[in-house]
């Protein structure tokens, strides 16, 4: 089982695409009724100043149905998931959730997953955790690991074959 099979990067998953598209359309319908572009989301957005993410524009583009354009844009990957926009929207719209759906869509469409996400996914698949146990350095440059510090064995999936089976089912079946 490799990561390429997992996300089917070579071959777009039409089933998943359809499901996420339905979800986005539903969001689009709801948002069309409620968002009046006040921009409160963008005024607080952590990614706005640094990376020019404008959540209110994401919502506006969704209203116009420009989903593919956003899925193909790098800007959707600048969100830091701080949830300020969802918290502060006077109309209870959650741009951050629209962004999650768009990113899921990009992955399911077979677009390349940016940065380190592939490695994180691969690690979860093989050991159940985002990363394996690391040695750390102290302030006075000594190297230590979990057992030196007196911590018990780490908790991770006991039957890795069954665990991997579950993960691959999620990736292959419908979202």
């Amino acid at each position, binding site marked *: 089982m490799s990561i390429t099979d997992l*996300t089917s990067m070579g071959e777009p998953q039409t089933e998943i695409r359809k499901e996420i598209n339905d979800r986005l359309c539903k969001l689009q319908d709801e948002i069309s009724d409620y968002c009046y572009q006040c921009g409160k989301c963008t005024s607080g957005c*952590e990614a706005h100043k*640094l*990376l020019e993410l404008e959540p209110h524009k994401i919502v506006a583009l969704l209203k116009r149905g420009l989903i593919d354009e956003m899925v193909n844009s790098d800007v959707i*990957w*600048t969100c*830091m*998931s*701080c*949830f*300020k926009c*969802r*918290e502060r929207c006077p109309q*209870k719209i*959650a741009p951050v959730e629209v962004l*999650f*759906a768009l*990113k*899921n869509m990009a*992955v*399911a469409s077979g677009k390349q997953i*940016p*940065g*380190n*996400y592939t490695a*994180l*996914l691969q690690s*979860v698949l093989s050991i*159940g*955790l*985002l*990363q*394996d*146990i*690391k040695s*750390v*350095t*102290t*302030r*006075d440059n*000594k190297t*230590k690991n*979990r057992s030196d*510090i007196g*911590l*018990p064995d*780490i*908790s*991770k*999936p*006991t039957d890795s074959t*069954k*665990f991997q*089976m*579950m*993960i691959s*089912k*999620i*990736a292959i079946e419908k*979202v």
Partner: protein
Amino acid sequence: MKKYGLYPGCVMPTEQYALEKSIREVLQLLDIELVDLKGFSCCGEPLKSVNQMMTITLSARNLAIAEKEGLDLIVPCPMCHLALSDCKRILDTDPSMNQKVNKFLEDEGLKYTGKSNVFHTVEILHNVVGIEKIKEKVKKSLKELKVATHYGCHLFRPSEVGRPVDSENPQEIENILKAIGANPMDYPEKLDCCGGLLNANLPESALTKTGQKLQKVQEQGFDVFIDVCPWCHRQYDTKQKKAGETVAAKLEMPVMYLTQLLGLSFGISEEKIGLDLNLSPVDKLKLGGK
């Protein structure tokens, strides 16, 4: 003695050992028993951008393991805490999603039923242990210590999911700090993000966010910066030097986990709270007051 399962997540048990060590030491002293369970995996939240179904299934899987042992969970990582709380909210109200997720769990012989509850360390300290009991344990009052607190976004947002503290004016960590004699003060950037989640694809930008906030904190003359999240701490403490370089500032801000500072005040040794693992200049703190 109250008993809870400890859900460690990924970042704490693989590199942020000071958090795990200090939580174990401090909670034991406060009569909270932690049980280590086998078989936990990632909560799935860091992969939400890739596949949300994976997030919710992984969370349900971990909750199902706790249910099997009949235990509620203490979840020290705010991101894991959000993932598990959100998963509970969805599966308890959406029967079709519940069915779908449980189908995935069948292979491992697990079943999510919603019996176990999740608590964050701050909740346990503030509401279960209580301020009075914390006061009783103080051996060394941290008088006059000017503290800036950082909760971590996922501990207080989104409130719709049900978070342990208020989304715009959280005061729980401040109350705990006052109980050990310290002087926590609010500051304009208190609710701002560390940028840690951008590490996956935009690590430079993540460090810029970290550096910008820490620079502001340093300028305002705080003695120490207190956090509770392993992701945030990795940014503010472990990578402080790099964060400073990224924003062209000389950062020399002592950063500690809340449970480390509590441990010091309770008279627990520096070694037992893993203080040698903090890479920020915690030595310059003159603890014990004037």
